[in-house]
């Protein structure tokens, strides 16, 4: 069922066959996988986003495992950027697109795609919005069961980049998708030709697994392995922080999609900037240890206009490395009816500003990535 949702272009099918042949001939799994990165990375010509199928997807069997010890030893992916100060403004350029929301879904419910019109979303725009640094926020450790929706949708993402085991945060979307920061998926060192086709695949994350509701080294729902990785073209080629968004389509686990077990967050984009988010992640650097779910609650503080449009948005939050990719949730709710809209992800912070975090602004480009990860075509 899930497979039906994934657009498999004839190009990819061709590559798949070619790669299988290469594997069969070489008999050396890991080398074959590396050699075939160039042909395994493919551009969605409609959205411009780039996907990559790991070697184990192509071979149909996984050759790696993440033991508890390996999980606990994985490094939190760096979050800080070196510039001293952001160029901040409380004014965010209005997106050209229509604000849209797609409801989340509790476990075992097939996600129903509902879009709502601008009228239901746009309240009168406030004239004075936001906060100076440091913006107010609350941050606390989740003291409920992590297996309760929507906490269940957030988990730890384990992967390797350049051979180094890393750790990020991610969240369930759609049926088998997860959303995270782009830097947890790809190093941003790829190259595209003028038509958006992959010339140099750069450095994709490898051995990617997702452990939802991860707690104290335990993955209560098990781990899901990667079927296909997705990244925005802007991040792929140039580490553009405005597009530091990525995701993974996961394999079934025990015959179940991820969302059948943990539920899924919804999605909201092209929103105005008068928003309050619950930001859930697994910070790992001091004073945290990467084994607990931390929650920041805060409002839009300002936009980082030094990045240009669409300017990333900041909220107050003191989470550290490891929180990369953690979802910013609008209309947080334990209710089984809709809400829990993914509307941001932890992306970066300034070294001089330890109690704020930035996310890409989710506009229509973010929605195309969501489409690629969830198999939606509109």
């Amino acid at each position, binding site marked *: 069922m899930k497979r039906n949702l994934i657009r498999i272009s004839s190009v990819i099918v061709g590559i798949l066959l070619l790669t299988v042949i290469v594997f069969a001939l070489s008999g050396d799994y890991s080398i074959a996988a590396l050699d075939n990165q160039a042909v395994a990375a493919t551009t969605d010509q409609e959205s411009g986003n780039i996907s990559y199928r790991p070697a184990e997807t192509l071979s149909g069997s996984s050759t790696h495992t993440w033991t508890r010890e390996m999980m606990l030893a994985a490094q939190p992916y760096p979050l800080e950027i070196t510039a001293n100060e952001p160029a901040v403004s*409380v004014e965010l350029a209005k997106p050209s697109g229509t604000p849209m929301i797609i409801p989340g879904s509790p476990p075992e419910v097939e996600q129903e795609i509902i879009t709502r019109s601008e009228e239901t979303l746009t*309240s*009168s725009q*406030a*004239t*004075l*919005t*936001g*906060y*100076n*640094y*440091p*913006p*107010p*926020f*609350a941050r*606390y*450790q*989740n*003291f*409920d069961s992590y297996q*309760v929706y929507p906490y269940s949708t957030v988990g730890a993402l384990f992967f390797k980049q350049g051979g180094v085991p890393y750790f990020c945060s991610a969240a369930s979307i759609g049926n088998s998708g997860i959303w995270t920061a782009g830097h947890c998926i790809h190093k941003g060192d790829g190259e595209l030709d003028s038509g958006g086709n992959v010339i140099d695949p750069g450095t994709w994350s490898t051995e990617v697994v997702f452990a939802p509701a991860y707690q104290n080294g335990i993955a209560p729902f098990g781990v899901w392995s990667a079927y296909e990785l997705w990244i925005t073209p802007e991040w792929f080629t140039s580490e553009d922080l405005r597009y530091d968004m990525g995701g993974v389509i996961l394999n079934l686990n025990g015959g179940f999609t991820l969302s059948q077990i943990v539920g899924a967050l919804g999605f909201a984009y092209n929103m105005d900037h*008068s*928003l*309050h*988010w*619950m930001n859930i992640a697994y910070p790992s650097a001091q004073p945290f240890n990467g084994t607990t779910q931390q929650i920041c*609650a*805060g*409002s*839009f503080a300002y936009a980082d206009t030094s990045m240009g449009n669409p300017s990333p948005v900041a909220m*107050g939050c003191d989470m550290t490395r490891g929180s990369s990719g953690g979802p910013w949730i*609008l*209309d*947080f*709710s*334990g*209710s089984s009816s809709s809400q829990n809209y993914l509307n941001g992800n932890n992306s970066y912070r300034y070294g001089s500003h330890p*109690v704020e975090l930035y996310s890409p602004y989710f506009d229509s480009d973010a929605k195309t990535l969501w489409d690629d990860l969830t198999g939606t075509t509109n």
Partner: protein
Amino acid sequence: MKRTLSRMQFINLGLLLLTLIFIITSGVSNAAVASADSQEIISQSHDGETGVISARESNVEWTANQQPWTKSRMLDAKPYPLPNVGGLPTTLSELPRPAGDPIFIPSTPPDNTSPAFQVENDFENLSGDSLFGYDYPAPFTRYENFDDYTVFPYSTVGVLFFKQNGTDYRCSAASIGNNALWTAGHCVHDGSGTVDGWSENVVFAPAYEDGNTPFGTWSFYDLVTRVAWFSGGDFRFDIGGVILELNASNQTVNDLVGSLGFAYNLNPNQHWFNIGYPVDSPFDGKSMQICAASFARNDPFYTSPIPMAMGCDMTPGSSGGPWIINFSGSPGNTNYINGNNSYRYTGLNEEIYSPYYSDAAKDLLGYLSPDTRLRTNILLPIIKK
């Protein structure tokens, strides 16, 4: 003698001392004098120095002559109207820095000892001097608590049932230690300046859920508010306290649910978790609702201490619900009450105002606390059965 006192308003310290003597000399023995009357306010005390005013119920036992708060009576109690103020606040202004130091008093876990209040002044206040905020509507998240209500700190918040001017009402309130509660002033007195305006028959049901009281209920012993609220309904001082009697098992409310901390004289640029029991539509008063939001704006119609607004769409019944900073599942240097639901402007249904907590809030807290560092002077002794 008792009858005469019950209708007198003591407005100077001399009479306060007289009352003290009366209470001390006659106090507990009066419990035996069970009358057929409903609960009566037998003493009202005003401390001219701290500006707090209190009323104590008679020591009549919670017996058959008292109409009990049954489950159905609780369900029928009306939400106390969340005062609607006319006009529209339109400007943002900076709040003057308070004269006092920011003070933080820790929260405590449920246990069997009365918590020792501590005064702390070593908190690094991260908020800057300059603030923005939000005009209406300010962003917020509001959700129904989907965790176990009996888990700290949710356990500390509950419904306050009472009768005021003959009508059964309900508000929200929170445990703040020493068998005392914090709530809105209008939930303990109607602001009319009269003795008759005090709430009666007050009971607290912490972690109230679907009409059930998982920890049981506590009945009141003493009510307190600011004189400015009592005499004129000044919303800058819409804060109130309740001292409870022990329950039938000789337990304080703190023994079973723990207590929130308390913080005052803070920079208003804060983020709060606001927990209450709204009753009017779309709510039904049976569930604990949580608003999470940052400081939105000041109310420009007031002078200092200026009430402050946060985004929140809770309805009547939420009055008195605590605004908590440093929200956490662990007691300690966490969960400081720093505001309470007080009023909203007509037509602006997605923001709620709270008094700003200055030394005036401290003085009220001092009345409820045995910690002498919080007390400007010694008021009535805390008497437990």
